[in-house]
């Protein structure tokens, strides 16, 4: 997968616009089972990321991802900042400048493990891991962009009947059942935006 400067900028814009454009939806999901700030927090974080363009896209891919992660950590606030920020930072640390698909699979694996450690959580607790983990299985199994995006959307949907064990929604106990996890929704939007702009090379 080669990602030149224009492609890197396109990727950053797509990620940011997916959060900024869905801020209201994410906020209403969070109002149901959290503290109602998820949409605003992610919007603020990704607006800050956008503000670092065009310089951001001049950086090589690993450095660019680390910079995105650091901006999110510092600007998002809430638990999402460190969680999503850690994902990008670890991805940046693990990737070579010109990653093959196998490099990307290995790096996302590391990044997901870092998110687990940061949140002391696993899949099954109604968090963004309930999107990241099943999507990673499809990605590692050779799924194309369409399959990955579909799994991301479905995985977010599957959090609706789940009982929240971690995060603010866990305070609600059984009342968390019946609402989609906002963090899962934002993760699925980010993944959908990423794969829509990336072209995976076959068998590379």
């Amino acid at each position, binding site marked *: 997968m080669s990602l030149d400067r224009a492609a890197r900028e396109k990727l950053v814009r797509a990620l940011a616009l997916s959060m900024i454009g869905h801020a209201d939806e994410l906020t209403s999901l969070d109002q149901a089972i959290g503290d109602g700030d998820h949409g605003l*927090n992610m919007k603020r974080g990704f607006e800050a990321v956008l503000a670092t363009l065009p310089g951001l896209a001049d950086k090589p891919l690993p450095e660019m991802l680390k910079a995105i992660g650091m901006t999110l*950590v*510092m600007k998002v*606030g*809430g638990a999402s900042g460190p969680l999503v920020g*850690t994902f990008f930072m670890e991805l940046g640390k693990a990737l070579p400048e010109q990653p093959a698909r196998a490099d990307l699979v290995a790096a996302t694996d590391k990044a997901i493990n870092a998110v687990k450690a*940061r949140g002391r959580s696993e899949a099954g607790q109604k968090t963004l891991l309930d999107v990241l983990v099943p999507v990673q299985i499809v990605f590692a199994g050779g799924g194309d962009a369409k399959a990955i995006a579909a799994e991301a959307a479905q995985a977010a949907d599957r959090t609706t009947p789940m009982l929240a064990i971690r995060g603010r929604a866990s305070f609600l106990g059984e009342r968390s059942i019946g609402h989609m996890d906002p963090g899962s929704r934002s993760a699925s939007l980010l993944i959908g935006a990423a794969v829509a702009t990336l072209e995976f090379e076959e068998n590379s």
Partner: protein
Amino acid sequence: MRNSNSGHVGIVIVSHSPKIAEGAADMVRQMVGDAVPLAWTGGDVDGGLGTNVAGILEAIETAWSPAGVAILVDLGGAETNSEMAVEMLPEDRRARVVVCNAPVVEGAVIAATESSGGSPLAAVKRSAEEFYA
């Protein structure tokens, strides 16, 4: 907030609400006095309810003591952001900062009381955490 350069463990209070953080710090000062380095932070970067890593890093710096710093937090994001802040510290400081699993107001008062008696970081953390265990 002015802090003495004592060898006492520093206390940092992190709440989503700056008012709660400041109020808890006021209680610590009134009940424990000035011997303990103390700092508070609250609110997101836009001044709304929330917590932010930069504010937490600044509070750790303000309350820094060679004996270490104990952080008291309220809800989830305060804890995650505090842990993130600790990881971003220079390596020689990282091992001397802990996040306590204790209620923010009571924990801060108890941790500061323990610190004012000259206890080491581990004892300060334990006292705060045992109160509600």
